[in-house]
């Protein structure tokens, strides 16, 4: 197993302390969760609907911004340069920063899963997918932070966080933003929210003849299929492709600027 270097541990501890001393990410996640509970109480809808909505905002917008914020702070206080002079390699710095923000993201996702009522296999799917998407967002935040344009994080975060919500209102928009990993979070969350409430049953697909998993809802006209197989697989594939693209950008920024962007 890869052992983190002392420099990575030092950076991790500093960023982790910053997470605790300036808990913007955790507080925002808490505030949104409370808002979700209030909305659910007054609307009579299941809390999982709101967990989905706010999860997209946290993963798409807040994680990216928080990560870039740490790097911007390290740069503005000259610490990036001091660390570089002290022999901290860019990859060690990035690994420490990634680990600290990702740890906070894992904790937040876990709390959302519990409050959202995702138990058993649903929790595995929820956590597996949100952690994967969180990793992409944190890596994107680091990439933006290393670049010469960290201020771009705000509009990019807005796009990543809000586009999936706007897209939900219009099919054409949904198609346009379909290849964005944060929209996939919403799709999986919707799928999970339905899964949390409805029965899953097997039926034989009319087209391919295979046995597939469906989620059904009793309606006046019979049984409506709310979500078919493939949502999760497609979401994972799209998120992984997004992840590879972000990784490519990260490698480019890392090589071009290191800690001196």
């Amino acid at each position: 197993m890869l052992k983190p270097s002392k420099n990575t541990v030092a950076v991790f501890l500093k960023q982790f302390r910053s997470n605790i001393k300036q808990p913007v990410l955790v507080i925002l996640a808490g505030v949104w969760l409370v808002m979700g509970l209030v909305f659910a109480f007054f609307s009579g809808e299941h809390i999982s609907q709101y967990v989905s909505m706010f999860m997209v905002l946290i993963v798409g917008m807040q994680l990216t911004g928080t990560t870039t914020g740490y790097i911007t702070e390290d740069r503005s206080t000259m610490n990036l340069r001091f660390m570089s002079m002290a022999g901290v390699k860019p990859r060690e710095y990035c690994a420490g920063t990634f680990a600290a923000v990702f740890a906070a993201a894992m904790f937040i996702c876990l709390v959302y899963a519990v409050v959202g009522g995702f138990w058993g296999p649903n929790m595995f799917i929820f956590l597996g997918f949100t952690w994967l998407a969180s990793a992409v967002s944190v890596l994107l935040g680091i990439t933006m932070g290393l670049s010469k344009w960290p201020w771009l994080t705000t509009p990019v975060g807005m796009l990543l966080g809000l586009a999936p919500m706007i897209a939900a209102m219009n099919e054409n928009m949904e198609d346009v933003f379909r290849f964005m990993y944060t929209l996939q979070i919403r799709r999986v969350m919707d799928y999970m929210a339905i899964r949390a409430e409805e029965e899953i049953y097997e039926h034989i697909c009319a087209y391919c003849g295979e046995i597939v998993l469906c989620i059904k809802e009793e309606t006046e006209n019979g049984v409506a299929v709310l979500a078919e197989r493939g949502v999760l697989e497609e979401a994972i594939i799209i998120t992984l492709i997004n992840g590879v693209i972000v990784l490519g950008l990260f490698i480019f920024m890392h090589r071009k600027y290191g800690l001196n962007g």
Partner: protein
Amino acid sequence: MIRMSNIYKSFKDKTVLDGINLEVNEGEIFALLGPSGAGKTTIINILTKWIEADSGEAEISVGQNEIGIMLDSGGLYTHLNCLENLDLYARIYDLPKTRPMEILESVGLGGDDAKKAASELSRGMFQRLALARAILYSPKVLILDEPTSALDPGTARSVCKLLQKIRENGTTIFLTTHNMDEALKLCDRVALLFEGKIVKQGNPVEICEEHNALRTVPDLEAVFLEMTGVEL
């Protein structure tokens, strides 16, 4: 230990450094004196390789990780306490766990002050914390940008004493200041910088003698006025 030869640097059309030559020997305290905008910080940035000179050579004959730097407000996180601020570099330099507290005590920030967030410190305490960060790993070369600029006279004197002590341990100190008295008392050699040029360089007392500026007390400000026609 530190050498700059024929350094030229311009930003857009403005010449900031115009043929700088200087040399600092091992174990010396060397001060760069000059008013704001004279080019002092640009010299530090070139020495530490944060920016490149347009031409000329600049070098410090130790590794980058053996240089301690104290900038006006750089290197500190205001939301972390004094110990946490130093802990980051103590870990990077693999220092004993007791080292941050030792250094904080040496700059007068021991005890309860060590647990205060940097944002809660007075300007003078903040500057001492920045100095503590710079000397934490006993660097061979210490570069200080206006180390006593915001300090009251008493604290400034204690910082000067601390710098003398650090020098006794063999550290070469390169500092910038516009406090002529401080340079006179503290430094082995000084360079007077004005509009990107070094107008005089040497032992501060000898410079004052040469320009008949000793009078009752040596007066470097008088030398600066004579050399540049400008008051500090």
